[in-house]
């Protein structure tokens, strides 16, 4: 047997050795405490929903609405300032042209 053939055999043997591991992997049993936690998910989720009082939800909604209103007000005011500065510029340049 040549060195190359020996190397090839060694390589194939190593690959077989690695792939054969899959035959020995066992599916582990799920721990009992995990099953209990999973079965408690519906009640935990319901409890979390109940934990947030309606008053807090309305307060948050009102805050968001107020924030949006302030944003709209501020953006409208800036548009007015821009338009007034534009008209000032026009007057100034037309005055220069006349000179």
């Amino acid at each position, binding site marked *: 047997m040549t060195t190359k053939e020996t190397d090839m055999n060694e390589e194939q043997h190593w690959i077989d050795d690695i792939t054969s591991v*899959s035959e020995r992997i066992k599916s582990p049993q799920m721990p009992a405490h995990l*099953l209990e936690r999973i079965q408690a*998910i519906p009640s935990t989720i319901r409890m979390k929903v109940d934990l947030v009082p309606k008053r807090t939800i309305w307060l948050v909604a009102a805050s968001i609405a107020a924030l949006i209103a302030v944003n709209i007000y501020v953006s409208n005011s800036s548009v007015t300032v821009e338009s007034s500065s534009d008209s000032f510029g026009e007057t100034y340049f037309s005055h220069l042209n006349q000179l």
Partner: protein
Amino acid sequence: MTEQEFIDCAKRDKDTAFSYLTTAYAQKIYGSCIQLLRNEEDAEDLVQEVFVSIYLSLDSFGGNSKLSTWIYAITHNKAKEFLRNKTRLKRQGTLTILDEHSEGLSSHTINFNHPGVQLEDKERAAVLFDAIDSLAENQSRAYRLAKIEGYSYTEISEIMELSVSSIESLLFRANKRLREILADFYQKSKS
């Protein structure tokens, strides 16, 4: 319970439907999570995340796909998300168990703590899992389901929504590619 009975049950009483799922699928999902993450603690967290997701989206299951396909898709997506977050956080204490042949096989280090792997197989299993991760996604999924999780070809075809013959050819290609990856790795480690 048939799929239609399950859908009707989920519409009528979400909790009963969920209870049925925990009895029928919890063990399988746990097995999948262990194989996908190879870490007991992470798998427990993931199983919980998967079941929370299942409970919250029970209403949206309309029977367009098989129940097993739907559940496996949720598990797979949640596992991917979990691994992405874990990689991003780069938690401390990450242990890379790789033998002298595994150097450079994959940059993905994992805290290998698979309860189904015997101690003497741990290093070889780490190399094998890294090689499986290097396969194309479909091949890797099919190989893991068939060879590691022990699903039948029919079950895999239902989960992956492919024909049995497609699964057979996918596994043939996966086997071939896996051996190529391992051979390449063996050569690199030798030189």
